[in-house]
């Protein structure tokens, strides 16, 4: 079962210090580098996140980091490495395993003008604290008539990890994406990670920042502009990661890499796919998506999360609502299977989108119109 992915995907070890060893992951594909023709340097997503935190902490003394193992242990995934030494225990706060408590404390601190960056060891554990994220953080500005804004970031790895089973491996993009008052960001590359995390920390509203463990060790080229401490990406703007004319593929986080890889394969079959990296699930960049579909007339959505009430469902609805007359084929949705994540490797592989699923669905979208 794993044969296909092994052929197409570079195998490389990831140094995830506490959470499992993940053997497979996607190398950044050639097309991802097009935008970085002037790039001189490569940077891992881990370093991109770490440097963004570091710079924002240096720039604003109200920014502090809080969570489990963020300080002395240097982060369960080493995202906060070095920060305790540099900023001390007042600003890099190790907590007990008490998500509801420290999330509430973070939100309270944000009410009073601090800018907490709350790390969930993984977003699975944010379920312990989801009440504070939604009821205490997302709604306060509205309930107070604009008097209490909540400048907080909730960040950590989200989505499918390798071999960790049902309770540790799922995507919460659609869950948080449903909530007005939250902003939900989903970085793919190192550029995304740096630009979006800095934007999230500077933003006056609560931001849910969904990282991906399997991407942490991946290196991407970064330009001088991206490395500049003032670099910041706009919240709510998607990025056309690859230009194309025949079909639009939307994806976020790790699935952007899969979509780019699929696009390379499709190119050989004469299909020129446009790949949109959503970067933000809420706000959703409906303009960029609809503009692209009006050009290509075909749409494939890709996500690791569940199909029912998923991100793809919302994108599909948006296109049907706004660009119905432009569609030349039924929209295709590639998504996580309707099952809790199984442990064993062959079933786990079937539970999440693979590159060949994207290729197959895209071909259908292209040939279906006749």
């Amino acid at each position: 079962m794993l044969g296909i992915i092994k052929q197409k995907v570079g195998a490389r070890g990831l140094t995830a210090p506490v959470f499992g060893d993940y053997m497979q992951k996607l190398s950044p594909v050639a097309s991802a580098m097009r935008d970085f023709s002037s790039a001189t340097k490569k940077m891992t997503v881990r370093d991109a996140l770490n440097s963004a935190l570091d710079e924002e902490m240096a720039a604003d003394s109200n920014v502090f980091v809080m969570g489990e193992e963020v300080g002395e242990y240097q982060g369960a995934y080493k995202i906060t490495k070095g920060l305790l030494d540099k900023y001390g225990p007042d600003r890099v706060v190790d907590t007990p395993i008490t998500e509801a408590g420290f999330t509430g404390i973070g939100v309270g601190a944000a009410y009073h003008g601090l800018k907490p960056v709350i790390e969930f060891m993984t977003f699975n554990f944010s379920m312990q604290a989801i009440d504070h994220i939604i009821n205490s953080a997302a709604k306060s500005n509205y309930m107070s008539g604009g008097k209490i804004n909540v400048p907080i970031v909730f960040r950590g790895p989200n989505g499918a990890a390798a071999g960790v089973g049902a309770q540790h491996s799922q995507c919460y993009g659609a869950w948080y994406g449903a909530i007005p008052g939250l902003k939900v960001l989903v970085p793919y590359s190192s550029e995304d990670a740096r630009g979006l995390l800095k934007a999230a920390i500077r933003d006056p509203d609560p931001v849910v920042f969904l990282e991906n463990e399997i991407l942490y060790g991946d290196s991407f080229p970064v330009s001088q502009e991206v490395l500049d401490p003032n670099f910041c990406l706009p919240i709510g703007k998607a990025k056309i990661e690859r230009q194309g004319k025949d079909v639009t593929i939307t994806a976020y986080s790790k699935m952007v890499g899969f979509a780019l890889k699929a696009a390379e394969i499709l190119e050989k079959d004469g299909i020129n796919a446009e790949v949109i990296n959503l970067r933000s699930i809420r706000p959703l960049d409906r303009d960029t998506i609809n503009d692209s579909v009006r050009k290509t007339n075909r749409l494939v959505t890709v996500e690791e999360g569940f199909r029912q009430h998923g991100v793809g469902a919302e994108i599909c609805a948006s296109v049907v609502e706004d660009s119905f007359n432009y569609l030349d084929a039924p929209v295709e949705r590639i998504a996580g299977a309707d099952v809790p994540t199984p442990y064993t490797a062959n079933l786990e592989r079937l539970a999440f989108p693979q590159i060949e699923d994207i290729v197959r669905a895209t071909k259908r979208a292209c040939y279906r119109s006749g």
Partner: protein
Amino acid sequence: MALARRSSNLLKPLSTASSSSFLNRRPFSTDDSTTITIETSVPFTGHNCEPPSRSIDTTPKELMTFFTDMALMRRMEIAADSLYKSKLIRGFCHLYDGQEAVSIGMEAAITKKDCIITAYRDHCIFLGRGGTLLESFAELMGRQAGCSRGKGGSMHFYKKDACFFGGHGIVGAQVPLGCGLAFAQKYRKEDHVTFTMYGDGAANQGQLFEALNMAALWDLPAILVCENNHYGMGTAEWRAAKSPAYYKRGDYVPGLKVDGMDAFAVKQACKFAKEHALKNGPIILEMDTYRYHGHSMSDPGSTYRTRDEISGVRQERDPIERIRKLILAHDIATEKELKDIEKLARKEVDEAIAKAKESPMPDDSELFTNVYRKGYGVESFGADRKEVRATLP
């Protein structure tokens, strides 16, 4: 600091009844009529309760069983470590070596109608409940013969027929669940109790206190077993808990501090707790124990504690060595016989692994089984709905 060193006051046989006869009764392992009275390593410390006596009766048979079972558990975990390193086990794998006496002592005090629920460090708890090595290794390797048919993995072992309810990955979440098991036991007027196991890290989770309050209000037969191995991942207990005296953390709920490296102390405490819980409701048992391995496989376990600390515990408090010394002191078996038992454990483990490897991975069609008990024929989809779809059974 985090860990008080014990003096090596390990073995203090108090008295040996009919000591002349049990030598004649070999083979030792079946002698359950000779009574040996031993003393627990340290006294129990009680909170809101009068602690049980330090002296406890045992038999040569029980001593041999403790030794054999713990040797098997230890061997299983060591083998899991190497299977992980050879990439036959994936994801997380939390090992129990060092903590075996907690499972062994607890099982010796209770029946399989008493319930147990625990967190992700569950392999040996499963074995203690009567699970097999084959089911364990097959699950770890994601095979069909696994106790969860390869779907659960290391963190999600279960054995419902022996009232073992998992195997939980969300720190602390198993504590209310355990109180729920106790609720059902009381509701149905059973004479059984539930042992809910959690770590020192989990001991700080809020939901534990919510559930404990209700358990106390309603006199549920719930025994909260805090396995204090002194670290939650890389965090020493005192960095996470204002009061690391976990047996006192129930306030109005009684508690007992127990040497969790001494299977007999654990047995005595669990017997005491079961009687208490059936009469009076919840009680907390804090088991002072230690994990030899890192938290999970990718944690070397040596950045936040010293190697001296680990080897010190191994030398002075190891649960298997304690029993070995007792057996030798009472001349129940020879060193060679005990070595042979360990060799046998190794052989059993190797055989189980070989067998587990013969078990196939689950068929692809298993992806959609077990989502519901009753699937109402609902259509379900794979990643590409036009490629993979199933009707739920």
